[in-house]
């Protein structure tokens, strides 16, 4: 009796050590795991590619035996922080988290990914927003761009060449031409996050030609020293918004249902332009059954040579983070294994960059060694802008938590519906920034 127990103990110990070896190898091969670890992820990167992402997760789960990745839906109406705080409080934190502006809030709860294989496959500039005080707390998902999206068919019919639009006056002329062709020029979306994060970025990113000058712009706002109402960039930016408001033919709708309506409008072929990002491309292609959507810069002044008029804001929309406080080593290994599979294996890459119709997410690759390239028209256009260096910073990566809600839901929507003046808007933006932590200078969130 005693002997057999001893034998059993040895057998147990050897399986345990075997499994330890399995943990040590970066991508654990099949059939060597004593038990499966469940790796949870909050959300599905983005709602637009939810189905494709869930299919990707299923494929990963089938491809190996050690981990089960499970996506927790979360509440779409709530922000990342609103979803994740109660989960932490309940000691039920997701292993993988995905966000952008709340990275500084999470930095002390997630692991340093600096030494992982995938972190080494990304260029330094794209890692920047996921680096907090020297710790690489996040790795990027993709690169995205926003600007003026257009329906190629509508512009062709109206005789508008988007590549020739270099100034605000050119843009107005283009709107007029589209109108003359019997179509509606533009759907300017009043949805709060588009106004609060992306449209305001057009101002913050055009403030200076160097990164330091742009960050200084934010510094001044936090310190209460900025007087943006008298800032030339601000005036130009407001004038551009006025132009977009004037030619907006979309129904003004301040609620979230606006998003679907704007996509339906551009895809439907009645509208020439909309201000949005390339994340809408999968939906546009699905809705219109055609690949006719391009992207162009939003010129904010009447001098074609002014900084920013020929460039589009390109940035990382979010970073993956891995919890270090409430997960097991095994779960963390699983999380890294999943992300590595996603961005380095042929099957994962096909899912990441492949076309939507084939179950892909149509992401623009940001990791080295990608064998799959996106083939859609807009994605190719963005690559052209990127390789020509005609990109602008996503200053919205630095917005403190809650700021884009405040500015987007209140002041920007108020200006959009003519409730306040441009001077009020300037004051409101200044007030929203005052006293916020300068996370870009290493201050704690």
């Amino acid at each position, binding site marked *: 009796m005693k002997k057999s127990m001893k034998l059993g103990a040895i057998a147990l110990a050897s399986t345990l050590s075997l499994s330890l070896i399995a943990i040590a190898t970066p991508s654990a091969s099949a059939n060597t795991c004593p038990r499966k670890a469940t790796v949870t992820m909050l959300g599905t990167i983005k709602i637009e590619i939810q189905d494709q992402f869930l299919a990707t997760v299923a494929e990963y789960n089938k491809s190996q035996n050690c981990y089960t990745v499970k996506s927790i839906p979360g509440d779409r*109406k*709530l*922000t990342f*922080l*609103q979803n994740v*705080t109660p989960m*932490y*409080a309940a000691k039920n934190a997701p292993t993988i988290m995905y966000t952008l502006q709340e990275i500084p*809030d999470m930095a002390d*709860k997630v692991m340093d990914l600096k030494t992982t294989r995938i972190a080494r496959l990304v260029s330094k500039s794209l890692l920047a927003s996921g680096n907090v005080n020297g710790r690489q707390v996040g790795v990027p998902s993709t690169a995205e761009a926003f600007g003026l999206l257009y329906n190629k068919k509508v512009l062709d019919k109206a005789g508008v060449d988007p590549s020739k639009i270099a100034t605000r006056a050119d843009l107005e002329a283009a709107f007029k031409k589209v109108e003359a062709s019997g179509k509606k020029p533009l759907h300017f979306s009043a949805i*709060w996050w588009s106004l609060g994060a992306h449209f305001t970025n057009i101002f913050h990113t055009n403030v200076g030609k160097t990164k330091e000058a742009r960050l200084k712009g934010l510094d001044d706002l936090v310190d209460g020293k900025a007087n943006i109402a008298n800032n030339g960039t601000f005036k130009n930016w407001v004038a551009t918004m006025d132009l977009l408001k004037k030619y907006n033919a979309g*129904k*003004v*709708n*301040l*609620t*979230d*249902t606006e998003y679907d309506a704007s996509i339906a409008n551009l895809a439907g072929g009645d509208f020439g332009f909309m201000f949005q990002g390339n994340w809408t491309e999968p939906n546009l292609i699905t809705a219109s059954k055609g690949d006719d959507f391009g992207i162009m810069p939003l010129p904010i002044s009447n001098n074609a040579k002014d900084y920013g008029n020929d460039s589009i804001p390109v940035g990382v929309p979010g970073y993956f983070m891995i919890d270090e406080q409430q997960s097991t080593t095994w779960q963390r290994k699983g999380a890294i294994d999943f992300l590595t599979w996603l961005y380095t294996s042929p099957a994962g890459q096909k899912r990441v960059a492949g076309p939507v119709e084939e179950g892909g997410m149509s992401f623009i690759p940001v990791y080295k060694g990608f064998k799959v390239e996106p083939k859609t028209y807009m994605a190719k256009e963005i690559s052209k802008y990127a390789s020509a260096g005609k990109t602008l910073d996503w200053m919205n990566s630095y917005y403190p*938590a*809650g700021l884009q*809600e*405040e500015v987007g*839901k*209140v002041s920007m*929507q*108020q200006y959009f*519906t003519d*409730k306040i003046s441009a001077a009020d808007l300037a004051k409101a933006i200044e007030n929203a920034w005052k006293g916020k932590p300068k996370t870009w200078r290493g201050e704690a*969130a």
Partner: protein
Amino acid sequence: MTRARSIKKFMKFAGVPLAIFIIVLVVPFVNGFYYSFTDWDGFKATKLVGFANYTESFEDPRFWSTLKFTALFVVVSLILVNAVAFGLALIVTSKLKSKNFLRTFFFVPNLIGGVILGVIWQFIFNSALVALAEKYDWEMFKESWLQDTNKAFWALIIVTIWQSSGYMMIVYITGLISIENDVIEASQIDGASPVRTLFSIKIPLMAQAFTIALFLTLRSGFMAYDVNVALTGGGPFRTTELISLHIFEDAFAEGDFGTGQAKAVIMFLVVALAALVQVTISKRYEVQR
């Protein structure tokens, strides 16, 4: 019976509910009260900050406008929900043939969750009514009601009435059918008109139902959250945020858990005071039989 035995007996019957009450209500409440004096960020509290969260709350102009908006919402919804519910109760206790069907019919909206209800009505106000208005030229609905603070307020009221009057109707039905028939018959023999019967006999004899219904609507008015989130989301311009949503946004969106918690304590005091006043006043009108 000895003291120990009576405690034992008490615990046998009330132990479990008491434990649940303490765990899910008392402990979080005390905890929350404590957090309102700390610099809690939702993840950890590092130090006590005294009344800083409270002074900060009172200095927040949006907190004041939210309180005002909530007070208005509570008063208007309290009056209208109860008026509608009492009217419905009178209808379904009358001699109508379809009264059983109507009871179910009026109660059903209460079974739909607030969020789903909010989404349904958001569609009605944003899309359905706007589309119909354009077709038939109804000036009133041409712009979505959720786009304008005042109209969005009435949208909130309409949905609240639609949702909760069915429930309050049940409370009033119970009150109405508990009145003995002989009192009503006596009044009819004395020649009282139906209106006179209603105001002099029925309402005084069912004052208890009013106490309960008014208390419930008062409380749910202050606590309203799900319909608010799903219908207006606080928009336009965060002017239709009721106090619960405001606290939630403050704590979770901006990460100001300290002030959020302080505002929650202030709100508790306000609700407790209002409920106390209401119950004391309505109790006076109750008749002992």
